[in-house]
């Protein structure tokens, strides 16, 4: 995302009196990070930032950290900043009645990609010396204490952004900045999925075994996902029913990821948060992308587009099976 900090602050100043709080981002602990930020008072507004580092999907907090199920009694709303991908999560949450559309004021930010800190560290010889990073057009400008270097933006943004089909928020009350052109057409094949499918069956198994073997079941992926709403009632942690044990082996890890993916089937909006937060770099979103591709093909459904639609796996339609 191009830097929209000033425009965002201006806008929030203008409407803040009508809002309870605003979910946004502020600069983080190093030049490669921002962190989620709750604007609660007028004076907080000047800490807001919105740029290529605004990667967190803030809708997660709406469902998991606050009650947004019903509109507030006094009519005041929660402002929430969303990129294209985040907006789809919001739609999905509205569909599933975790968030009331009337409870939120949606600040939409068209986005050309957010950075992947891992990829930047791989690009820059001495990442510890980075002072700032900035997206300028198609370039990433990295300033270190040894000077400035420029890279093609595509070498630094997240995998999900390279195949983004919805860079513009699908729902918003205000749009900050001009809409941008999607990188992929809506019905385009998912290139990451295609790449894995090009592997032979044995190689594919090997690929996933290598990846999933690293999983330490820290559950960061689950916790970051805006749609993994079970929180501390997650099936991974209960012993009744006992679907999963603590044994450290491939079966259990595989089972965890399959359950996780199946719970997101027809719901995951491909925001990529699960993958971004994984401390061991497993492409976890890829599994869900594959399932989404199947759902799109079989049921002609894409999650998080139409707030009125009902996700196909959350309905019972006798017509589907002719029971």
């Amino acid at each position, binding site marked *: 995302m191009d830097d929209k900090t000033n425009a965002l602050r201006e806008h929030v100043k203008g409407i803040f009196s009508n809002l309870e709080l605003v979910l946004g981002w502020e600069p983080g602990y190093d030049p490669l990070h921002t962190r989620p930020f709750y604007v609660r008072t007028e004076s907080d507004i000047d800490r807001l930032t919105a740029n290529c580092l605004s990667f967190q999907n803030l809708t997660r907090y709406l469902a998991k950290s606050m009650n947004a199920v019903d509109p507030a009694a006094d009519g005041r709303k929660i402002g929430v900043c969303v990129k294209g991908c985040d907006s789809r999560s919001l739609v999905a949450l509205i569909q*599933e009645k975790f968030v009331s559309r009337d409870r939120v004021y949606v600040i939409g930010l068209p986005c050309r990609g957010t950075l992947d800190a891992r990829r930047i560290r791989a690009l820059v010889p001495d990442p510890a010396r980075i002072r700032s990073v900035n997206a300028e057009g198609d370039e990433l400008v990295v300033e270190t204490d040894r000077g400035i270097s420029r890279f093609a933006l595509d070498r630094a943004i997240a995998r999900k952004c390279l195949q983004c089909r919805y860079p513009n928020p699908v729902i918003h009350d205000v749009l900050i900045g001009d809409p941008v052109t999607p990188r992929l057409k809506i019905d385009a094949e998912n290139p990451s999925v295609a790449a894995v499918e090009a592997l032979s069956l044995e190689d594919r198994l090997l690929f996933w075994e290598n990846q999933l073997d690293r999983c330490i079941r820290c559950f960061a992926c689950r916790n970051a996902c805006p749609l993994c709403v079970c929180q501390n*009632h997650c099936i991974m942690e209960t012993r009744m*029913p006992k679907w999963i044990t603590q044994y450290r082996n491939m079966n259990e890890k595989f089972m965890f990821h399959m359950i996780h993916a199946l*719970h997101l089937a027809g719901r995951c909006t491909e925001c990529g948060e699960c993958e971004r937060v994984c401390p061991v770099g497993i492409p976890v979103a890829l599994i869900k992308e594959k399932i989404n591709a199947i759902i799109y093909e079989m049921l002609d459904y894409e999650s998080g587009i139409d707030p009125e639609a009902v996700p196909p796996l959350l309905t019972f339609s006798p017509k589907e099976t002719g029971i």
Partner: protein
Amino acid sequence: MRIGVFICQCGTNIAGTVDTRAVAKKAMEFPDVVFAVDYMYTCSEPGQKEIQDAISSHRLQGVVVAACSPRMHEPTFRRAVKKAGINPYMFEQANIREHCSWIGTDREANTRKAIDMVRMSVEKLRRNQALFSTQVAVNKRVLVIGGGVAGIQAALDCSDGGLEVVMVEREPSIGGKMAKLDKTFPTIDCSSCILGPKMVDVAQKENIRLYAYSEVEAISGYIGNFKVDIRKKATYVDWNACTGCGECTQKCPSKKAFDHFNEGLGATTAINIPFPQAIPKKARIDSDYCRYLTGGKCRVCEKICPVKAIRFDMKDEIVTEEVGAIIVASGYDLFDARVYGEYGGGRYPDVISAMQYERILSASGPYGGHIRRPSDGREPKEIVFISCVGSRDISVDRPYCSGICCMYIAKQAIMTRDHIPDSNCYVSYMDIRAPGKGYDEFIRRAQEEYGVKYIRGRVGRIYPRGDRLVVQGADTLLGVQVEIEADLVVLATGVECSAGARPLAEKLRISYDQHGFYMESHPKLRPVETNTAGVFLAGVCQGPKDIPASVGQGSAAASKVQALFSRDTIETDPQVAHVNENMCIGCGKCEQVCPFGAIRMKTLRDGSRKSEVLETVCQGCGLCNATCPNKAIQLRHSTDDQILAEINTLFD
């Protein structure tokens, strides 16, 4: 837990390919098993006694029987263990017959499989809990949907048994298809003479409330306590006032209204009484043809009506009825002959459907019972009947046999020869299906006594020549092509599900097959029950059948209702879903998928949302359980842990 295992030999059904003794011996090694034995017929009286004796002598707390399908004998064994003092849900049945002995001949492999199946049942039983039913009061009123002969029979039987009946009929009159028939096979008695008195009975019985020209809008509740919203469609005539005198129909200037009762042969007036014997015999305005309702001018009927019954401002009205059971008798529709373009149905006026021919034959029909051609009113001499038009044809998605056409063609051919002795009747058929009592004799009478010419083979094409129709086809018995110049062609259009069958099933939460016929609970053993408790089936809505079978089913459904209502309360099945409130996150997904409306969301005092199962509505289908992300909702007696234990034991 102390578990006893009983391996049934089922004569040689199981023992033939499974070493039952070895299975019993192995079972003794399974955890908690303190007793195991094999027996010739476990379901027999001495077999059950053996179980009961073992329960007391070995102080058993749970029983596994490895035998046939639980569908067959689970209730038997549950009763047996209950008698011996243990909870009927502390019982498991492994199906080592249908799932094992019958499907393989390798004795050694079968024995191994049977051992595994018993092992799984033991593991499941170890996690079973005693379950208890609750009692709910029964509302002893019954709803009958559809007033064809099946529905009428069911309603009258229930009424005779002293039950209050609510009947909902979609059309302005009851009677269904049978009311349109002229004579009925195989006795050739007059249809309206045998149906008419029953229709009158429906009108006169004080404990039958008839809603004609009405449809079921919504159904909620469960066995013993259904709530039904009924939409009374606007007739524009106040039926409480209307005496059925018919003055209005004499004067109505709109005389081209579609005559549904006569299958579109001839026309009727916009305000009409469908037929002289209609029940209720009341006038209705067909709003598609009424000059006032379509053009704003006329109101002639309003002036004519001696009792001032016309209400142009009438609107649909919703009334609610409460009942304890429902009989569905919504009947059927007929295949649209236009699908076979080569026959010219709908294109040539003298290619008609068999139902239209019934109306032509009928004395109350459009031609007063004289057989005439619709095109020019001439009496036909050469008449061809074509069977299986929309039956037993995969290419039009009608692979099934309609079951009645062979018989009614023979009837119509006999009637034709009777009316016009110098006529020739030809029947083009695939094979003749006449399995009922006196049916084959009836067909023979048509062939031998009435000289109806039966030609085996399909008709390929029908086309006009002059004012006649050329029917081209094959005679596959003689192996020659045949060509008949006919005056009239009658197509035996097949039976298909009633137009609104699928949406009605969804309201009733019952299943239908791929062709829209309602599914009975078991094709042999529960033919009038559905899988939704308290909902029963009668007549063709369940599958093609003739009048005797429809009436039989109507009576059967009525007797099921009477059996149900002979008790004041009913026991609920405890194998239903149950929510662990501590785990439930209130996401509402279970509520969304439940096909029976058995779940509602509630808010606790701390503001958190939780799901709640209406135990009497829940049918134990398990969809909620499969959908719940964290498995907070579990199906009692089939919990995840029980199923996982069964699977896990296979890999231990």
